[in-house]
């Protein structure tokens, strides 16, 4: 669905993207993780043809991004944090504009607003919506014309956990319909929960890429197992034969309350690779 090969981009003297490479197959959720200023939004703009680049090649929807036509762009949905909504218009009126542009029957508007959980706010002016509701309205606008490829730039940034979860549910539901989703975030839990593949972007360079669990396993240098015993005691055991015997003994005695592996999370991996925290600015 997207092929990005050796892409370079700079603004004035500052290199923003330096040799970025990845392939995204159809139907996958691809997460681009990085702190603010890492180049995530710039990359979305390049992949969607909003911004030119100095070197490399980008193929989106099977075409060089520079050659995407208006018809091709109808298969792309973009939600960026900076995108606005028509404040004086209601949710329905906001979507009517885009339904008319895409030639979609107005009957689909209600259905789309229900899908994002805005059925009770359909007639509410956008200026009265909360941040979470506004994000849902933007999501509805993205999903309205049923694009094959969707770009979501930090879709849950600044939202409360409950709204975040409901947006995750919507994204996963959409994934099941076979669409490809390109997601940027600096929330590693979000990336781990949603993405098939994640790329860790730091200062314009992808420092690691793969399935979230694989990356975490790869950087599991400690190889320890953490046990919480029914006595209240916490135990850390190193991988090995001796530990297996010990765990087996404790299990048989019914002394284990919880058992966890100790591989790092994406945040820790990012910190190890770059010396920076993903959410250092938050």
């Amino acid at each position, binding site marked *: 669905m997207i092929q990005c090969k050796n892409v370079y981009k700079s603004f004035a003297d500052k290199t923003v993207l330096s040799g970025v490479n990845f392939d995204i197959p159809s139907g996958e959720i691809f997460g681009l993780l990085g702190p603010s200023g890492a180049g995530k939004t710039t990359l979305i703009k390049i992949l969607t043809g*909003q911004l030119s680049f100095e070197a490399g090649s980008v193929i989106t929807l099977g075409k060089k991004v520079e050659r995407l036509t208006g018809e091709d762009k109808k298969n792309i949905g*973009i939600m960026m944090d*900076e995108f606005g*909504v*028509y404040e*004086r218009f209601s949710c329905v009126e906001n979507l009517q504009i885009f339904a*008319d*542009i*895409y030639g979609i029957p107005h009957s689909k508007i209600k259905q789309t607003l229900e899908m994002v959980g805005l059925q009770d706010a359909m007639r509410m002016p956008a200026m009265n919506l909360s941040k979470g509701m506004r994000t849902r309205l933007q999501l509805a606008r993205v999903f309205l014309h049923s694009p094959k490829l969707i770009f979501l730039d930090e879709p849950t940034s600044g939202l409360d956990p409950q709204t975040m979860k409901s947006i995750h549910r919507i994204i996963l539901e959409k994934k099941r319909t076979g669409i490809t989703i390109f997601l940027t975030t600096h929330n590693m839990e979000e990336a781990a929960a949603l993405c098939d593949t994640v790329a860790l972007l730091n200062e314009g360079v992808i420092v690691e890429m793969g399935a979230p669990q694989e990356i975490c396993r790869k950087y599991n240098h400690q190889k320890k197992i953490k046990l919480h015993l029914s006595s209240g005691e916490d135990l850390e055991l190193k991988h090995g034969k001796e530990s297996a015997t010990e765990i087996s003994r404790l299990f048989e005695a019914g002394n284990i309350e919880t058992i966890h592996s100790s591989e790092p999370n994406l945040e820790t991996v990012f910190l190890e690779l770059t010396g920076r925290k993903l959410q250092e600015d938050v």
Partner: protein
Amino acid sequence: MRNISVIIKKQIKDTIKNRVVLIQFILFPVMTLIMENAIKLDGMPDAFFTKLFSVMYMGMAPLTAMAAIISEEKEKNTLRVLMMANVAPWEYLAGVGIYVWTICMAGAGVMATGLEKENILFYLLIMGLGFVISIVLGGCIGIFAKNQMVSTSLVMPAMVILSFGPMLALFNSTIEKVAKFLYTQQMSVLLNKMSFDKGIGESIIIIVINAAVFIMLFFIAFRKKGLE
């Protein structure tokens, strides 16, 4: 064509909700109706207030509305969403321009009720032409301005010169000498003559030069800044 009609439809819906633009559209037609009916002095020329306010309307409403609409969409990033939804910049500008022109013509239609029947067509023709030039200038400001604040600061002096220039020219000969180079002043001359008879050559030349300059400015602005 579909995108242009979507933009027009969107703007029509917004007319009632956007008080800033709505006031611009209805202020002068309402004032004209009131003044024409309320004030009738001996020796006052026919349709004095209609002609006076028409030129002010021409230099104010389309200019302010066009610049305000474009700069608001830029500031609130809804213009980028439209562009990403495959609305071409020219379709957007055409949609907004047609909308502003149509609403202003409706306003001019209301103002024309104070005129003799045989003058109405000429009046609407002159007003229609004046609105087009003001729309081009308003579009130019909207393209140049990053946000509504910049737009207002650019619109204000242009609006004052174009709208009040012809009115002040009535009272001061020096201002008249300068104001004669404005299309609004020449439109005022034509509205006072109410015919294409002799002696309008200079007016037509000045109007054409004004239009050419603003169209050129518009294309320079568009090439330099685009719509984003």
